[in-house]
């Protein structure tokens, strides 16, 4: 089982390094990357300043492993990686990183979209949206 959860934000250097690691695989012709970034949404005149992520890690890891296996059987991929932040992620920081690599470009977009949606739908992750005044509300996925 690959490590998915990262404490704190996912840095642009981490993403750059992940890309660099795939450059020795010369069977890869196309990568597709999804990044989720924390938005400064406005709710009733207050702005979100951060999201605090928590998860039920034991169940989440089981579900992520299922998603990984299904992704490889559904799509013709060379490799795939999923990373999700835990803890406090400020606006503008990246909390979700899905990285799909394939021989050809055709399927990478729908593979990424499918994986992103499965992680959102099937993985017990919670986000507490924290406003500038330290009040909060629990994030609801649309």
């Amino acid at each position: 089982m690959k490590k998915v959860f990262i404490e704190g934000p996912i840095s642009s250097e981490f993403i750059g390094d992940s890309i660099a690691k795939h450059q020795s695989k010369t069977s890869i012709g196309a990568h597709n990357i999804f990044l989720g970034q924390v938005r400064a949404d406005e709710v009733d005149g207050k702005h979100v300043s951060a999201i605090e992520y928590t998860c039920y890690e034991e169940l989440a890891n089981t579900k992520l492993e299922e998603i990984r296996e299904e992704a490889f059987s559904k799509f013709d991929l060379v490799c795939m990686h999923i990373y999700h932040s835990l803890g406090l992620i400020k606006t503008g920081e990246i909390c979700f990183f899905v990285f799909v690599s394939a021989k050809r470009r055709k399927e990478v977009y729908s593979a990424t979209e499918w994986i992103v949606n499965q992680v959102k739908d099937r993985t017990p992750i919670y986000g507490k949206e924290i406003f500038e005044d330290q009040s909060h509300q629990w994030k609801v996925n649309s």
Partner: protein
Amino acid sequence: MEVTMKYFGQLVDVIGSHEEQKSIKVNTTDELLQQLSENYAISHIPFQLAVNDQLIGDEEAVKLNDGDVVALLPPYAGG
């Protein structure tokens, strides 16, 4: 018997804890939930139940054993 309760999302606010050890006299998840909803205003919050990291169907009542981990999972909000 003793079980470990885990609460997530909005339930953390309502119950005031994200994890607790609980001595219970009931035998099934059904009875446990009944008892919880008498003590906390959780009836307006939709959630799924997991026992020992396994999701339990909505209509399923599972027999509990000493040492079980019971998690209450509102709708997920990852990504």
